[in-house]
């Protein structure tokens, strides 16, 4: 009789297989498709997609525009969320958590419905269709604001008051205490907030479609179009690779690799 020794370590085998089959292999497929093309029904290796992307003004301008929208949206989110998170985290209110809940609740409600509701509101006040860029940015801010508030609140909440007292004690006025102590210490929150907002702002085309009246093409939409409209999966994959490179570069810039167990999506609030 073969005796199977049960071991706790073996519990990672199913998940390991799952990750290999449905995460790693699909990513390799993207890489494969990006550097091949289909000619007369046969697939062959090619740099054509790569060259095409960097010589096409339409695609490059989409990239640039996508970037601009994402940067502006992220900046606005940060400008709104930072003072709010600061006020919430520093308030002496006993049920701070309940207050926080009010502000981040939307992240648990279906975003398509919320964005559609915002579309109705913009329609009502006559903004819909007037400036699609502006509306897209409003939509991005509306959708992703909670993801900026939460990490900022978490770091500011944990901030030890004695640092601020020490800084004040050493002669810092309120402004210098903030710029020299509070803000630098809240950088981890700022960085994870930025990564949480920036990348979806470049790719979540449901927001840009719904609020930009289907007139705004961001990078995510471009990938979608190559897959569903133009039926050119090779080009779609190439754009995905470029997107991945951008994600990778932003992660390098923000050092997110170190911060592995970050509480994404507010897992701890459930």
């Amino acid at each position, binding site marked *: 009789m073969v005796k199977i020794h049960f071991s706790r370590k073996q519990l990672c085998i199913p998940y390991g297989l799952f990750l290999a089959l449905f995460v790693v292999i699909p990513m390799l497929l993207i890489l494969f498709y990006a550097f091949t093309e289909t000619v007369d029904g046969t697939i062959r290796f090619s740099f054509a997609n790569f060259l095409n992307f960097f010589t096409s003004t339409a695609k490059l301008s989409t990239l640039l525009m996508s970037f601009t929208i994402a940067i502006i949206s992220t900046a606005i989110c940060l400008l709104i969320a930072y003072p709010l998170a600061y006020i919430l985290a520093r308030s002496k209110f006993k049920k701070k958590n309940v207050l926080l809940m009010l502000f981040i609740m939307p992240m648990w409600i279906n975003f398509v419905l919320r964005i559609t509701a915002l579309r109705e509101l913009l329609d009502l006040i006559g903004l819909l269709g007037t400036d699609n860029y502006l509306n897209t940015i409003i939509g991005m801010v509306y959708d992703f604001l909670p993801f900026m508030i939460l990490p900022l609140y978490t770091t500011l909440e944990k901030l030890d008051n004695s640092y601020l007292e020490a800084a004040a004690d050493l002669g810092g006025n309120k402004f210098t205490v903030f710029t020299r102590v509070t803000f630098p210490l809240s950088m981890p929150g700022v960085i994870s907030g930025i990564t949480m907002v920036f990348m979806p702002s470049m790719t979540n085309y449901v927001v840009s479609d719904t609020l930009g009246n289907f007139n705004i093409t961001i990078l995510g939409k471009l990938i979608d179009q190559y897959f569903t409209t133009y039926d050119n999966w090779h080009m779609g994959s190439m754009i995905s690779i470029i997107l991945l490179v951008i994600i990778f570069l932003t992660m390098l810039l923000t050092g997110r690799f170190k911060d592995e167990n970050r509480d994404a999506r507010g*897992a701890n609030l459930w």
Partner: protein
Amino acid sequence: MVKKILSITLCVLILVFIYAPILLLVVYSFTPSNVIGRWEGFSLALYGQLFRNTEIMQILFNTIWLALAAAALSTVLGTAGAIGIFYSRRKVAKPLQAASQIPVINAEIVTAISLALLFSAVLLYRTYFSLIIGHMVLCTPFVVLSVLPKLKQMDSNTYEAALDLGASPAQALFKVVVPQIFSGILSGFMLSITLSLDDYIVTAFTKPPMFDTISTYVYNAVKNGTNSSTPALRALSALIFVVMIAIILIINLRARKPAAKETSK
């Protein structure tokens, strides 16, 4: 004083920004008008239409069924995975954790098309299988992320203590380890449900052609301009908003109470 007024004003303004669209939909779900902004008297007509609309009811059912199935499967797979990773050597655990982070960091559209490429290669593109797997890819890493910290907090000797007292490895796992990490498993499950309910992009790329969730249905309705001709959707949205807000408030307020009791002791 001035500071306080400014703070409160800011908070209120942001709350208005967040809740105005939701409130607007909820209010106008109680009037039979086709257009938002035109009040035609209080009525539950839209809700009547909603519940009689078999198509929308089917979609609602699809969405919930999908979320429950994906969340349950993800929770089992992710919990086992987290336990496995926690007890494995670094050489095994590190690459697994890195691979597990890919769907978390990645743009959803990239995850979606990567799955489309895979499933079209094995002729399972746009099937229930690809749909469930797609949602599991989204959810499972978050289950792992919520279970791992609980394992780290746990006194690692309790597992050995159970063995020492005569439990088999499986008994030790289910009687001692799982109960101690249960809060993490539960939050992983809840998070999975919300992630699945929230998803549009992966669903759009993996769902069978005639299958719709609320997300894909509403997006397509907006795209085709049919959303204003089905005002019942307004009632659906309003209902989901209210139900979700209620659920979240109840869970969170309840979850905090025992914790508060513990500290006051």
